């Protein structure tokens, strides 16, 4: 890795997400999800060759994710895939307990592991109408491990109590631009801090008291990971959200 540039947060996030995936995991990402899409491809190339990559257009294990610049639901995912397994069947799969990992978004998260993707303020008269939970309300309760990623870690996002509980359930990790949280024993715990951030920064941008067992740092991307990332994501879609 070129030290003069230093590690980029998006690379740290994508590698952290990729390492959460195990071989043979069946993993789903939705729309507006370039980072998980790249993370899944990275995992398949590095340590999880039998990972099953599922997505909205229904392409199983797409060979390429290079084309759909503005979309993580583009037809290339099917065109370069090995089979067609459309969205409604991915949901069914999770409902019957057959989905290992779901990558999901969300706008507000609280210390108790509740996720809000619906509204700020009252549901029937919202101050802010959010885009909606997409798959979250059914996938977070049913996927064996739900991973949330979020590139804007601030006090409006990580709150003591969410305005609206879109869903809760098998939340496992939240990967942000500053750190990784783990949900365990009914609470969000600080799991690791990105080397590009600090405990102080995370605390200053989190709306609840941080809990942690020990201070750990998210491992930096390896050279192999970075070079693989350049290969599978040459147009740097993983940086789009930053």
């Amino acid at each position, binding site marked *: 890795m070129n030290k003069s540039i230093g590690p980029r947060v998006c690379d740290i996030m994508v590698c952290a997400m990729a390492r959460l995936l195990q071989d043979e995991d069946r993993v789903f990402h939705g*729309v507006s999800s370039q980072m998980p899409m790249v993370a899944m491809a990275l995992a398949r190339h590095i340590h999880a060759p039998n990972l099953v990559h599922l997505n*909205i257009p229904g392409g199983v294990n797409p060979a390429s994710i290079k084309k759909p610049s503005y979309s993580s639901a583009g037809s290339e995912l099917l*065109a370069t895939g090995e089979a067609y397994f459309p969205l*409604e069947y991915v*949901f069914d799969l999770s409902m019957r307990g057959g989905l290992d990992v779901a990558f999901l978004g969300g706008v507000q998260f609280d210390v108790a592991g509740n996720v809000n993707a619906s509204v700020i303020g009252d549901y029937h008269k919202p101050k*802010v109408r959010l885009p909606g939970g997409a*798959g979250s309300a059914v996938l977070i309760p049913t996927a064996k491990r739900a991973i949330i990623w979020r590139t804007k870690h601030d006090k409006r996002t990580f709150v003591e109590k969410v305005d609206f509980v*879109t869903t809760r359930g098998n939340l496992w990790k939240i990967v942000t631009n500053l750190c990784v949280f783990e949900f365990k024993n009914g609470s969000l715990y600080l799991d690791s801090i990105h080397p590009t951030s600090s405990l102080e920064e995370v605390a200053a941008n989190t709306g609840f008291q941080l809990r942690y067992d020990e201070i750990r740092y998210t491992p930096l991307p390896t050279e192999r990971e970075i070079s693989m990332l350049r290969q599978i994501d040459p147009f740097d879609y993983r940086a789009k959200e930053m």
Partner: protein
Amino acid sequence: MSSKIMSLEEAAGLVRDGDRISFGGNVLHRAPMAMVREIARQRRRNLRIIKTAGAHDIDLLCAAGSVASVDAGFVSYETEFGLAMHYRKAVEGGQVIGNEHACYTVICSLRAAASGAPFMPVAGLKAGDLLQVADYFRVIQDPFGGEPVTVVKAIVPDIAVVHVQEADDLGNAVIHGPKFEDALISRAASKVIVTAEKIVPRSKIRMRPDQVDIPGFLVSAVVHAPRGAAPCSVEKAYDADTKAIERFKKLKAEEIDIYLNEYEMKDRGFKVGGLR
């Protein structure tokens, strides 16, 4: 058998004020934008939109003041284009009711409709405020003695609009690439309008009947609509027109007519029987 080919204007006439309407495609892919624009130009009102994940279609109709409610799991452009601000403002302003669903509960509502059932079980919807605030979900007992299960109420769209690559004049429609929920909404809805990049001879469809995603007998109108999903993408035809989307996103609601007029000639083309 007689042809169902209509002009875009005629077909849009099948849509009534207050209709429940469901659009094919997903976010920026294969949304039936020509028909969406025509519905807006015809000033349809109080539409109740049903879609798993919408973007430009829902946003445009909200801007045009055509919408009473939206039942969807997700309404937003993808990452680089940001949020669907017209939708958002319309909900925040109280003009539009935004019924929060998971994409899957929309699918289940449509499955219920397609199978004539009043509701559909949704195994995964187990927790959260949606069960309290949304009157289309109920938790019921499992009559076979298992855990209680959430069910979602059927939604029968009055009309489904689907944009495809190829259709014959009977409405037999072929989708290339991802099909999303298009076939499902064609079975859930009372009427179906197919808009197609290309009208192909019946004989071509008959060469591969197994490739037909929507059978003609479910279809009420077929519209020849080249670039009928633009500025959204169509597999094997064109990619999303990011400049047009960005331009739209800068418009205020009161400027929407400019946008609709720009597309009017392209959308309507020449009349049926004439050249396009």
